[in-house]
């Protein structure tokens, strides 16, 4: 195992271009979880980005919040403007592991780790975040909702780094994030959902119910069209169209499907006239 420590973004991108097998590493919080069991990780080489200071800060532009590639959950938890404007980021950040993890783990790392149970990704996706990728070949932007193509598969080339996450600043009248784990804290999500409504329309994003965190277009259509929903079971056909939950050690497909429907139904009951 070797660890390379670039001091600037340019150096990091050049190093990665020279050896795309390198594993980029920000907080290392996911890496350490797998370390004891996945001994093949011990043979890999790592690009430790912790010295690339320019990736750390986040900034507020006129129409967007821009997270750096190394911005941590804690950086956002400490930002009062995020509490006011994009509160789901706070809700999600506070659900991640423990405070120790929140101070190390990064939003970008959460995106590229690509866990179906990621806590940070659903809220970013519900806010229409855009992933900014850079390499020595240039810069590209991919909407987070189109970033994943399969389990742990994503539109990032091995020589690219996530350098920014751009979150539009919009006025929302609905912002909901729910996480159901096996216990109240420090538990991996069994089923979770983020919902927003703005001028851009409804966004419904679910996690732990598909190979990757995803939008639920059929459910969004019900909301956009004001289709009548008389109980949580009425949402099930749309949910089954949108997601493909499985039975695993943490839960069952049935639980995930039904609870997702119930979370949505009860959270939206007072907000949608078509729900009754």
């Amino acid at each position, binding site marked *: 195992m070797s660890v390379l420590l670039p001091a600037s973004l340019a150096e990091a991108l050049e190093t990665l271009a020279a050896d795309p097998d390198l594993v980029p590493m920000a907080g290392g919080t996911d890496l350490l979880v797998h370390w004891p069991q996945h001994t093949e990780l011990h043979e890999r080489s790592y690009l430790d980005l912790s010295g690339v200071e320019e990736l750390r800060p986040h900034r507020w532009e006129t129409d967007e919040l821009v997270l750096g590639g190394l911005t941590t959950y804690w950086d956002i938890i400490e930002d009062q403007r995020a509490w006011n404007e994009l509160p789901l980021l706070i809700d999600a950040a*506070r659900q991640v592991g423990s405070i120790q993890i929140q101070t190390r783990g990064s939003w970008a790392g959460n995106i590229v780790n690509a866990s179906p149970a990621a806590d940070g990704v659903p809220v970013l996706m519900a806010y229409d975040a855009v992933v900014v990728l850079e390499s020595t070949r240039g810069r590209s932007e991919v909407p987070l909702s189109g970033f994943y193509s399969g389990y742990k598969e994503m539109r990032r080339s091995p020589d690219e780094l996530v350098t920014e996450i751009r979150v539009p600043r919009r006025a929302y009248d609905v912002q*909901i994030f729910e996480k159901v784990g*096996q216990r109240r*804290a420090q538990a991996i999500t069994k089923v979770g959902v983020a919902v927003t409504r703005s001028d851009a329309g409804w966004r419904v994003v679910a996690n732990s119910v598909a190979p990757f965190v995803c939008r639920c277009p059929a459910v969004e259509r019900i909301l956009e069209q004001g289709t009548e929903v008389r109980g949580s079971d009425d949402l099930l056909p749309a949910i089954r169209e949108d997601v493909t939950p499985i039975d695993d*050690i943490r839960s*069952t497909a049935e*639980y995930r499907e039904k609870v997702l429907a119930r979370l949505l139904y009860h*959270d939206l009951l007072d907000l949608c006239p078509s729900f009754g």
Partner: protein
Amino acid sequence: MSSRYFGARIRRNEDEALLTGRATFVDDVQLPGTLHAAFVRSDLAHGLLRGVDAAAALERPGVMGVFTAADLGEYWQPGPLLVPPAPIEGLTFHARTQVPLAREKVRHVGEPIAVVVAESRYVAEDAVEDVIVDLEPLEAVADVRAALAEGAPVIHEDLGSNLAAHAVQTKGDYDAARATADLVLGRDFTYDRGVSAAMENRGVLAQWDERSAQLTVWDTTQAPIPIRNGLASMLGLSESQVRVVAPFIGGGFGPKIMMFYPDEVLLPWISMRLDRPVKWIEDRFENFFSTTQERGQLHEAEIALSSDGRILGVKDVFVHDTGAYDPYGLTLPINTQCTLLGPYDVPNYYSEFRVAFTNRPIVTPIRGAGRQQGVFIMERLLDLGARELGLDRAEIRRRNFLSPDAFPHDHEILFQDFAPLVYDSGDYEPALDKAIELIGYEPEGPVQSEPGGASPAEDGGEGTDGEDGEGSSRRKRLRGTGIVSYIEGTGIGPYEGARVRVEASGKVCLVTGVGTQGQGHFTSFAQIVADQLGVGVTDVRVVTGDTREFHWGTGTFASRGAVVAGNACHAAAVAVREKILRKASEILEVAEEDLMLTEGVVRVQGVPDLSIGLGELALRSNPLRGAVEPGTEPGLEATSYFGPRRGATASGVHAMVVSVDPETAMVEIERYVVVHDCGTVINPLIVEGQIHGGVAHGIGNAFYEELDCDSEGQLHNASFMDYLLPTATDVPPIRTAHIETPSPLNPLGIKGVGEAGAIPVAALFAQAVEDALKEWAPGLEVRDIPLSPNRLFALIEEARAGGGEEGA
């Protein structure tokens, strides 16, 4: 005797060292030249061991040795049967105890096959990967029911089946009682396994010193003296050549008792062969396989009741999973059998159990030790009975309590210590009343609330909890209350000892043979002695768990430390007090009756100028000139032993309020009350700490902790990422109250408390959750523990599907 300390809420003497990180744990002991061990463990739950090729491992730089069963020669022998079976009539019992390293076959995942010793743990772990093990898979049987089925793969071939034991204990005539009953209810129950999850895993450091021919072993054991005795015997050494030290230990809970685990047996032997210290510290992953587990049982139980809710009889037939070996004999199923009777008058009882070997890690006691299961069965049967008869849940218990004048009460069956199950003392109704008061329990009327009416359990007003961070939930929460009783046989023999010595400084040294794993011995034992000797509680230095300091004893288990060792401390302190007064009487030329012993000084009543300090007295009891008179001993020192005839019966009532989110099946415990009777209380602060820890342990067992083991004996969640322990957010504040019915079986009147908190929690959880869901999911019954959120979800779905629409 003044009683300044006994019964007082005193902060713990040991906490400063523990909280500032200065206390010594096994892994803190660093010896120059130490080698490190790592184990090659079986990947299969059942297989024939065809061969082990260590050649590549031995070539790795830094590897000092690889040992297999064949290398052990005569030293290879199965571990001792720790507890022989009780003399129950008609008993079948087959002892098959664990081996140091697998020889011809492996019987559970994680069973050690070879041990690698190297200059560092890193090298040792790498070398483990180099060892090639030739294992031929055999069909495995992980399920206890399947293990006893016809044609099941046999784990110990010579037995011809997986039956490890079979026993029947009876009292009265259950069948006759059943014939006269107004109501007979039968149900099947399961209680699954978990791990003990001590904060500190196990560890051993063995050092053989060739020059002094001394073996020193630091071990996370709860029973250093039996380990010393066993090692001396196995290694052909004198007991005086072996010193076992159990320093501070981060939680015992049972699996650390005196197992003679492979590591405990092998490291001393390896240290003697290589003439180097050898250390092994278990990691958390290993702990899920190499440390013992508990609680797997299947019950078919039945209760016979009269129409007014009196218990006429109970019948319980159960299967107990002992895992691959049964070194602890029948302690667990007998505890289940005995504890099931609870604080109740059960005139007729039929209890039959079978113990089965399975291809899973070994089962030995964990905090509660079979008692949880018994309490769960009895309390569930009473809940079902109350529901069926339209009786209040607290009332059915009250009607069946043994009355305060029923003691000593003989249940006519044998307990785990081979003595008849006789309760020494108790008074159960005041505890129930106190718990009802503290939790705010409202007795239920004989009739359930009318269909369609507002449910008293629903509480829309406080349903959403702003503090819990669970988002903008608008879902209703259903509230329920539970209240259960239990007893716990504690403080069994055979004996413990203690030595008390006043030193020339005037301070006191107290030594006992038991080990300590967080129980507060450094304080509670000091309190006992300080009162007798009139010194401050911090003036008593307590030494535990070092066989060089005290030769005789058994260990810390079965909630016996305070009862047995505590009374030995008391007896030794009383003897030293007598010596002090006798010596002071000689020196001061005053009758003993006129002497007072306070603040480290012997004073003469009414003569303020005439006194002598304890230090001075100690010096003069050990003169540099002159002879020790016949019949006397030097020093202000005494050694005493205490062995109770049988165990003391502690008891309690637990109550809780839960709120259930019926949509997600997540449960929150809002309030928790424990009313507890552990006889006279030495230190309420310590007792409450023990209870709080026990309740947390019980909450984990009841709802969160579940080993996900498949039919091949493979565990799928051997990490704390997916084996969920309750965290601070899952354990509510706990209110405690104490009832004291002193035990007549020991001079201090103490009963044990270490396991108590954990014992009734599953029974309580089940009742409270059922209460919360009684209208939402009519007919829902909790019969399986752990009741995980997933299982509860399935139960709710099932009850709502089958229960019809009458609630809507």
